[in-house]
């Protein structure tokens, strides 16, 4: 800053003294701290400081004058900005730096220092002017911001790592499961595929990724059922589970598959991706079919000799003299056991069918009371030990599978007789109860304990106490329960041990 009085610098229009006083007041009115150091004296002492500098530093003027500026740095000497300052001072240049300075009470403040040299007519530096602004607030805000940025970045790194881990975790699951998995884009192009799929359908990853599902393997995946699932069913029934697709593949042959399809509904990158998982149930189906066929053929074959034996026994019954009690008894017993055997075969076949959900109902309208009456007569014909007494009526023409329901009534009646050896009567009560028809079969026999009551309708369940006295397979009631359920009805038992049991079922009208 060159001051040249000869240029006539005078702004008050009065004396230079007034100018000087006004300038001094102006400098003291500044919020920026201003100091002047003398460059010509050793250690460049401060020779002037304004009011603001006192305020910023907390020192009084008499504590400031004569000292080097560095006294504000305290012990915090190793600051990058110092070297910039040193260089500027050495070269007589201006510089702006941000310094950590300390007030008299030891508090840190950030000092934005603007340094500019004052030179004489020969260009030699005589003084330095220092303008200082307390930028602690701004600095703190900046530092806070930086801290937050760092924290954010740390979190992003952390999150990315966790995502990557998750991705690897998911990928490893995808590759490990023993089920075929495909991920499709919304246009049905394959996005990813697992090893199980590649192995099962004998394709390579290169032949699969990016290809539209229907175009895979020369169009062998253009399966009408699959098309229906993806285009018609899935959009309105997401997710679709256990959808069975059966298809004859050109190279690998017939496959029966259970499909789960899940359209991902999240917003974002994975939007509208479709997850498809295939379970190959071809072998299981075939094994089941073989088992069904076997049981079906076996029970059919078993019935042929049974028919012959039964026929001959009845022929004997007809031909032998009626006056021999022992012969009559022997024939009646043989007949009973032939009937029992036939029941077992029927139940075996039914269980196999029911297990595979194949129980077929042939519904037709029939006289319900008449059906029960015929079933009772049928059972009465085989067992003379008990009297079956029917009371009440439904007076219904019911639409259901007459043959199957008759099977239920016969089963309940034969059970009732079998498990009440000491009793002589079985009571059947028919009624209509608000929208249902009800059949109750009561015996006065062994009864069923509370624990066993829940289990009697389970397959192959036999009450322990009963197994010893009355061997059997324990599928009769299971079959009954399934038949009643297939008619949307309910079968249950009320009983107390040693006091007999009532098996009832209701069917909706």
């Amino acid at each position, binding site marked *: 800053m060159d001051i040249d009085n000869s240029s006539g610098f005078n702004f008050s229009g009065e004396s230079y003294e007034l100018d000087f006083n006004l300038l001094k007041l102006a400098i003291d009115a500044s919020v920026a701290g201003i100091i002047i150091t003398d460059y010509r004296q050793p250690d460049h002492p401060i020779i002037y400081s304004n009011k603001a500098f006192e305020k910023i530093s907390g020192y009084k003027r008499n504590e400031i004058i004569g000292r080097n500026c560095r006294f504000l740095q305290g012990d915090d000497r190793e600051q990058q900005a110092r070297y910039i300052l040193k260089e500027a001072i050495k070269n007589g240049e201006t510089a702006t730096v941000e310094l950590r300075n300390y007030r008299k009470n030891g508090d840190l403040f950030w000092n934005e220092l603007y340094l500019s040299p004052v030179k004489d007519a020969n260009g030699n530096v005589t003084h330095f002017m220092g303008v200082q602004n307390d930028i602690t607030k701004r600095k703190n805000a900046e530092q806070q911001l930086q801290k937050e940025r760092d924290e954010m970045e740390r979190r992003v790194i952390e999150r990315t790592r966790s995502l990557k881990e998750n991705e690897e975790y998911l990928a490893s699951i995808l590759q490990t499961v023993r089920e075929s998995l495909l991920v499709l884009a919304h246009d049905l192009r394959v996005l990813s595929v697992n090893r199980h799929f590649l192995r099962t359908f004998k394709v390579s990853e290169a032949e699969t990724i990016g290809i539209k599902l229907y175009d895979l393997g020369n169009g062998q995946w253009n399966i009408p059922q699959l098309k229906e699932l993806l285009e018609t069913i899935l959009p309105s029934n997401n997710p679709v589970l256990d959808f069975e697709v059966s298809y004859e593949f050109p190279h690998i042959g017939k496959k029966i598959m259970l499909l789960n399809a899940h359209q991902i509904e999240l917003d974002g990158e994975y939007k509208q991706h479709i997850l498809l998982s295939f379970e190959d149930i071809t072998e299981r189906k075939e094994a089941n079919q073989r088992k069904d066929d076997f049981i079906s053929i076996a029970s*059919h074959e078993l*019935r*042929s000799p*049974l*028919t*012959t034996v*039964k*026929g001959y026994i009845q022929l004997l019954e007809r031909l032998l003299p009626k006056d021999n009690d022992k012969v009559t008894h022997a024939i009646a017993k043989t007949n009973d056991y032939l009937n029992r055997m*036939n029941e077992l075969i029927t139940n075996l076949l039914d269980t196999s069918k029911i297990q595979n959900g194949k129980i077929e109902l042939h519904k037709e309208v029939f006289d319900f009371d008449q059906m029960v009456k015929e079933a009772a007569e049928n059972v009465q014909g085989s067992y003379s030990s008990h009297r079956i007494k029917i009371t009440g009526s439904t007076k219904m023409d019911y639409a259901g599978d007459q*043959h199957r329901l008759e099977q239920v009534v016969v089963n309940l009646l034969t059970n009732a007789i079998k498990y009440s050896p000491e009793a002589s009567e079985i009571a059947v009560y028919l009624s209509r109860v608000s929208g249902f028809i009800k059949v109750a079969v009561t015996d006065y026999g062994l009864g069923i304990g509370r624990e066993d009551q829940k289990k009697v309708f389970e397959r192959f369940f036999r009450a322990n106490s009963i197994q010893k006295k009355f061997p059997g397979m324990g599928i009769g009631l299971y079959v009954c329960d399934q038949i009643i359920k297939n008619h949307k009805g309910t079968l249950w038992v009320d009983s107390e041990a040693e006091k007999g049991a009532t098996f009832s079922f209701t069917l909706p009208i």
Partner: protein
Amino acid sequence: MINKTVLVCDDDQGILEMLVLVLESYGYQAIAESNSPNMFDTIEKVHPGLVIIDLWMPEMTGDEVVKQLRKKPETHDLPVIVISASMDGKQMADKAGATHFISKPFDIFNLIDKVEEYYA
């Protein structure tokens, strides 16, 4: 004069023989045929008043035989009782146009009751 000839067809020799004996014991003339495709010739030859036929037989099933019989005017009204151990036997027999269905194993007294109905 009543035609008491009953033609019985079953591929199971045991059932066939038993049925013949049972029917004979009730005074019917029972004729056994174990080969279902021969049924048409045998019917022409023996002119039965009633046919009892099994459902599941090799070469030709019982319901198929019934269907063919129903197509010919001379056997269109011939009473045919279908017997079977099969669960869907009744549906198949009804569909083919059988007169009656009895499931195996049957009660011979029930069977004879049915047979006598056609001769009543």
